[in-house]
Every structure is written in C-alpha cells, then in structure tokens.
C-alpha cells in the first residue's frame, strides 16, 4: 500500500476525464485518448496522470475535465483543444481560461458526502478508493460488535434514500433480530424514474462505496449473501460494478473469511428489464427471484420474510454509500449535517428548464428556492419560473409560493410532494400544468403492474379524463371525478407506486386549479400544449 501511495504522489498533476454516461455520448472517450496522447507528446507523462473518472456533476457542459491540484474544471472539452490544455496548463502552468467552468453557486451550496469521490478517483481502480480512506469503515466495524454498528447507525439519524425515508438503523435492528436464516441484502439500483440518474452516477463514479456499505450492513445484520439489482439500461454502471466486485474478491474483501476474519459475504448482480414498479421493495424481491415484478401486501415485511421468505434488508444504493462515512466518522458527526429530523445530504438530478442541470448533492433542509435559483442558476432565456416537480413521476408540482420550504421527507409530504428517488424538474411559463399532470399519469398507467384495481383501472380512467380535458371536451364534473378517484388511488392502492401516482394530479389541482378551469370552460391553453388537433384545424 505504501508503494501505491508513492506511485500516486509521484504525479504533480492529475487530469480527471469524466467518463460517465452523461459525458461518454458526447465524446469523453475521445477526449481521454487525446489527453493520453498529448501528455506523451509533450513528454509530461511522468508528472501528469490522466485518469478516467465518474461524474463530475456538470452534465450539461460535458465532456467535463477536472485538473488537480487546484480543482480546475474544464467544460465542453473537445479532442481538438486537448493539446492546448496540456501545453498551457500542465507544461506552462497557465490554465486555459476560456474553457474553464465558472464556479458559481452551483458548487458553493453543495455538500458532497455520497459523491465524495465522484470525479476524483478512477472507479476502475480499487486502490484509488482505498487511498481516499475506502474500506476503512469495514476495517473499523470488524473490530466492533454488530450491535455497536447498528447503534452508530441509529445515532446518525440516517433515513432510507429510496423515497420513504424509513430510519435505517431501525430497519437494520429488525432484520438483525429476525430469527430465520439465511439473511439477504438487496441493494436497489433500479432507478426507473424518468429524469433521475443519481444512482447510476454513483455506481459509475464510486462503486466500492456501495460494496463497502453492503459489507458493513451484512456484518451488522448477519447476512451472507447480497444482490445488487440494477437496471439493464445502465451498461457502464454494470461494467464498473462487475469490475469492482472482482477486485474486491481478489483482495479478500468479498467471499469467505473476509480480511482473514470469520465474516463471509458474497455479492451478485441482478438485472432489471424495464419495469418501473420493480423499484418497489416487494416487487424487487419478486424480480430477483425471477418472477413478474408484482408487489405483494405487507405484512409480512421483508425484514422477516423477504427473498425466498427469508429475512431481507432492502436498501437504496445512496443510503449504502453513506454507511462507510458514518462508521468511520461516527453517527454524531454525520448528524451534524442536515436538520435534526433529517440528517445528512441528498443527491438530486436537477433537470428541466434550468440553467445548470446536473447531478447535485445538497444538505437536507436546504430550500427549494436555493436549489432552483442558486445551485440551478434559475430559469434560462429570461422565462418565468412556473413550478418545480419534486420526487419523480409520482412527485408533486409545487408553485413559487412553496419554494421556501426546506427539503426534508416530512416537509415535502406536507405539501403533496415526495422525496422519491430525487428527481427535481423545473418547469417554466411554457409548461401547461394540466398537460404535465397528464404526462405523469400516462407514465404511471404504463408502469402499473396491474395487480390492484385502483392503480390499474383507476389511473387508466384518470388518463381518459385528461384526454377529454386536453381535447376540449372537458366538463366541470371532471374535476370532481379526478379528485374522487385520486384519493381512492392514493389510499386504496397496494404499493407505493399506486399510492403516490396521483400526486401530480392532486398537487396541480391544489395549486393550479385555475388552469384546469381555463381548459374546461374557455377551452384555452396558455402554454399552447393542449387542443393540438383543434388548434391546427382552426389555423387551416
């Protein structure tokens, strides 16, 4: 290990090229190659390391390149301009100013715990992770009792990042206490929300943080087998994780007698196949077992009867990536970030009509206004902000007047939104709220598993009503139908998908009812999204 450190320190510069799914489609691999060639051409390959890294976070101006020391962030790098960066910055020590990303509030208000290593380490090298203190949490916990590890988790106040916000320490206690064996862990990386890419980014940038989190959890609850359930649409994340698992096995961090202790844990990947509902905790179990991803009623809870009816801990990967930090630094340290009831940070995929879209990580308790206007840089093209959708397709649409609420599980639920998997979509004045609610309803209609009446038949009828309203055939009684069926779908559905699916309808009805009335009574859509076929007829 000392040798490795020496090897790392020998470099004066480190050029980190973001090779995540956000940047690769836009030529990141060519940029990487160009850097490798250029450092050789200028003969600086001994003092300048070129590394492929995970997401740096500025996905809208990719390919992104980070030069250390000094954290110089270059945006929209093309292979043609790579020589210039190497010549001026590395050889002459003069950063190429016109290509630098302006470090405004985008980074200032962020707090990177989960994404601590994103863009800084080469995710394909376990040594890079270890050099950053990685697997230190595992080492530390192996010298402690499982109960002490759980106590640390409880002290941290960490809550599940998958959406519902269940206290993690409490969940671990339940599985640890369950009598049956063997016990399983399932890491949820089935990020099915359209517009959300935080979990993928994490897996691509720092796969070992997920593996270490799972190891610590396994030790605490007494599990010997784990699965990472990942979307098959994420090839790069799959590759990265496969490599990371192989490396961890080679270093006896996975398998029998881990680090020469009696502790053993085996890890496998399982692939999703395009079903949003598979992210639901009982549906994911059915899917790992090779069945249709249909949720089942709880109780029994997975903590007692999960995979193959055995006690199972299901945890989102973002939650897991927090664990090593908590064990290393202590629960009390972790609880200092965020709010008392909602500690730590949360990753959000910030997209839509916003100047700086990308993957962000902010402390819990930050206001929506800060996220949209400071981190996100506000709405582009001088347009007016209209609403922000928080929590993915089953989140809530919140108006300007609610932008000052703090982001935490409970405050969001109070106003009709959810944390969900961390999608924030900004809508400007060109968006029609009726059309937006229709879009998300259609998404949920397509993704409903079909098991229970409210979600299967109810959402389909909501979709019909939206079709009517947006085609000019709406009646005022349709609003009552929307309201009544929405509350039945929310209260009567079997799983979280159905229970949250009407959120966009409920919140747009609550905060933007005048737009519905305008559509129904005046047959008018100010945003020009609805009455399309009608509109064209009129023009002709």
């Amino acid at each position, binding site marked *: 290990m000392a040798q490795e450190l020496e090897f790392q320190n020998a470099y004066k510069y480190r050029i980190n090229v973001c090779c995540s799914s956000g940047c690769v489609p836009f030529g990141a691999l060519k940029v990487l190659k160009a850097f490798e060639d250029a450092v050789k051409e200028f003969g600086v390959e001994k003092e300048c390391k070129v590394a492929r890294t995970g997401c740096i976070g500025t996905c809208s101006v990719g390919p992104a390149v980070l030069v250390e020391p000094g954290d110089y962030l270059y945006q929209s790098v093309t292979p043609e301009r790579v020589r210039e960066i190497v010549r001026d910055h590395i050889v002459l020590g003069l950063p190429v100013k016109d290509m630098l990303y302006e470090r405004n509030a985008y980074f200032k208000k962020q707090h990177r715990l989960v994404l601590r290593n994103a863009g800084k380490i080469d995710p394909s090298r376990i040594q890079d992770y270890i050099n950053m203190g990685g697997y230190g949490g595992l080492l530390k916990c192996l010298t402690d009792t499982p109960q002490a590890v759980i106590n640390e988790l409880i002290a941290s106040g960490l809550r599940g990042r998958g959406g519902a916000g269940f206290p993690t320490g409490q969940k671990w206690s339940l599985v640890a206490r369950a009598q049956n064996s063997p016990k399983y862990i399932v890491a949820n990386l089935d990020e099915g929300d359209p517009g959300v890419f935080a979990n993928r980014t994490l897996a691509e940038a720092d796969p070992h943080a997920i593996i270490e989190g799972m190891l610590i959890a396994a030790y605490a609850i007494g599990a010997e087998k784990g699965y990472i359930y990942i979307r098959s649409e994420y090839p790069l994340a799959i590759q990265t994780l496969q490599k990371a698992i192989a490396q961890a096995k080679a270093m006896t961090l996975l398998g029998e007698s881990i680090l020469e202790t009696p502790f053993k844990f085996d890890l496998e990947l399982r692939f999703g196949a395009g079903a949003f509902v598979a992210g639901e905790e009982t549906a994911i179990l059915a899917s790992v077992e090779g069945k249709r991803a249909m949720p089942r009623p709880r109780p029994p809870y997975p903590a007692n009867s999960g995979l193959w009816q055995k006690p199972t801990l299901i945890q989102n990967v973002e939650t897991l990536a927090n664990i090593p930090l908590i064990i290393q630094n202590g629960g009390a340290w972790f609880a200092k970030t965020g709010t008392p009831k909602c500690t730590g940070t949360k990753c959000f995929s910030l997209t839509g009509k916003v100047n700086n879209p990308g993957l962000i990580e902010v402390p819990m308790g930050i206001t929506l206004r800060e996220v949209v206007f400071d981190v996100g840089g506000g709405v582009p093209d001088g347009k007016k902000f209209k609403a922000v959708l928080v929590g993915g397709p089953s989140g809530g649409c919140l108006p300007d007047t609610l932008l000052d609420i703090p982001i935490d599980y409970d405050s969001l639920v109070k106003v009709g939104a959810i944390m969900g998997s961390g999608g924030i979509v900004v809508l400007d004045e060109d968006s029609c709220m009726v059309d937006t609610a229709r879009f998300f309803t259609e998404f949920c209609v397509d993704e409903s598993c079909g098991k229970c009446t409210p979600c299967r038949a109810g959402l389909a*009828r909501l979709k019909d009503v939206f079709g009517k309203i947006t085609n000019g055939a709406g009646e005022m009684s349709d609003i009552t139908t929307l309201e009544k069926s929405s509350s039945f779908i929310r209260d009567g559905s079997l799983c979280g998908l159905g229970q949250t699916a009407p959120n966009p309808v409920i919140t747009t009805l609550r905060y933007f009812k005048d737009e519905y009335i305008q559509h129904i009574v005046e047959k008018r859509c100010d945003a020009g999204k609805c009455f399309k076929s009608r509109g064209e007829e009129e023009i002709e």
Partner: protein
Amino acid sequence: MSTNTVKLKIDGVDVTAAEGTTILKAAKDVGIIIPTLCSLEGLTAYGGCRLCLVEVSGTPKLFPACTTPIGPGMDVTTQSDKLKEYRKIAVQLLLAERTHICSVCVADDHCELQAMANQLGVDHVMFERNWSREEIDSTHDFLVIDRNRCILCTRCIRVCDQIEGVHTLDLKLRGKDSQVIMDLDEKWGNSCSCTSCRKCAKVCPVGAIYVEGEPIEHTKKRDVAEFIVERRNRK
C-alpha cells in the same frame, strides 16, 4: 402451529382468534362479512381487488382484510362512509374497465361483480366506460374465455396452479393491458398443458370463463378449492 390466541375488536365486537388469522377470517367467524372479490377460500390470498379494505384505529392507512393478520388490541372498522365510498368506486372502476353488459352475459344473476354492485348500492358509473374489445377464445372443446368480462382477480390462475397443479394459466403484459393466457399465449384448444378440469370456470366470479352450453348454476361451484383442500387435509 402455534395455538396462541389474539384478542381484538372488530366493529366494536370483542373477538378472540388464533394468531396469524387474517382480519377477513376472524370477522367471518363472528358473522361480520367483509366484501371481497379476488379472495377465495382454499386459494392463497391475492390482495388485488381492494374491496376488503378496512380501517385500523391509530393509523390513517387502510388494510386489505384478506392478507392482514390480526394483532393484539387491534380495533378494526369494516364499515365507514369512506370505506363505502371507496368500495363503490372500486366496483365502478371494474365495471368501466372492460365491457360488462349483464343482459348478454352468461353469468347474469350468478355474477359476484353484479351482486357486489347491488349490495353496495352502485346505481351509476361515474367514469367514461372503456368499451374495450378483448379477445374471446372458444377453441377449447367446451371451455370459453371471454376476456371482455374478466376482472383480473386471478382466481382461475391460482386454482389452476395451486389446486389442479398444472399452471396452464397466467397473466401476460402488465397494468391495464394484462390478460389471462394459456401456455405461451396459445389458443385454448391448442394448449399442451390444460387438463380440461373446469376448475377455472367454477371459481370465476364473473362470466369470463364458462362451459359452453352448460347452465351457469351447474358450472359455478366457487367452493371447489376449499372443498378439495379440506379433503386433502383429512387424515
């Protein structure tokens, strides 16, 4: 099995029942009938139709009585304005989802959906009806499936798998597009695994699966699963 008993209240009535009993069963034992459609004794519980939702004091959540085990000290309400309203909406949704026309249905007067609508006082359907045209398959010698009348309760699938043991039937696709299929979505007449045992027709709550030419009251024996399970358990 554990013989521990649990004490609880259902609609104000004190109930004692064995640990692990469902709310549905515990209520039935004291004469409180909770509305159901997908549930059928002798088959595993499904929890899909949502007719049997009940309130449990202390939580705003609703629980399906067919899958929720009783707990000590539970205070269950099976009838309330909200539950009545929701049950009516559920039935209306099922009626609007596919093409249900009682007057031309083989199961008219022997239909659990129709009976449920009457019992709950559903006198109109507030939704636009879907009037879908689903496939009717009459290629089998005597069994017919009319998917226009199917409410996706999966009783047929469960009885085929759990009682007859052949698992000819299953669901294809998902959500509103879900359909009951035979084998690899074959015509019933071509099914390689169907034993023509008719149990699917017997337990179907509506007129979706029936025996051609046979009076419906002869076909429908919805207690067949319970009966077989009891016989099998006899020592």
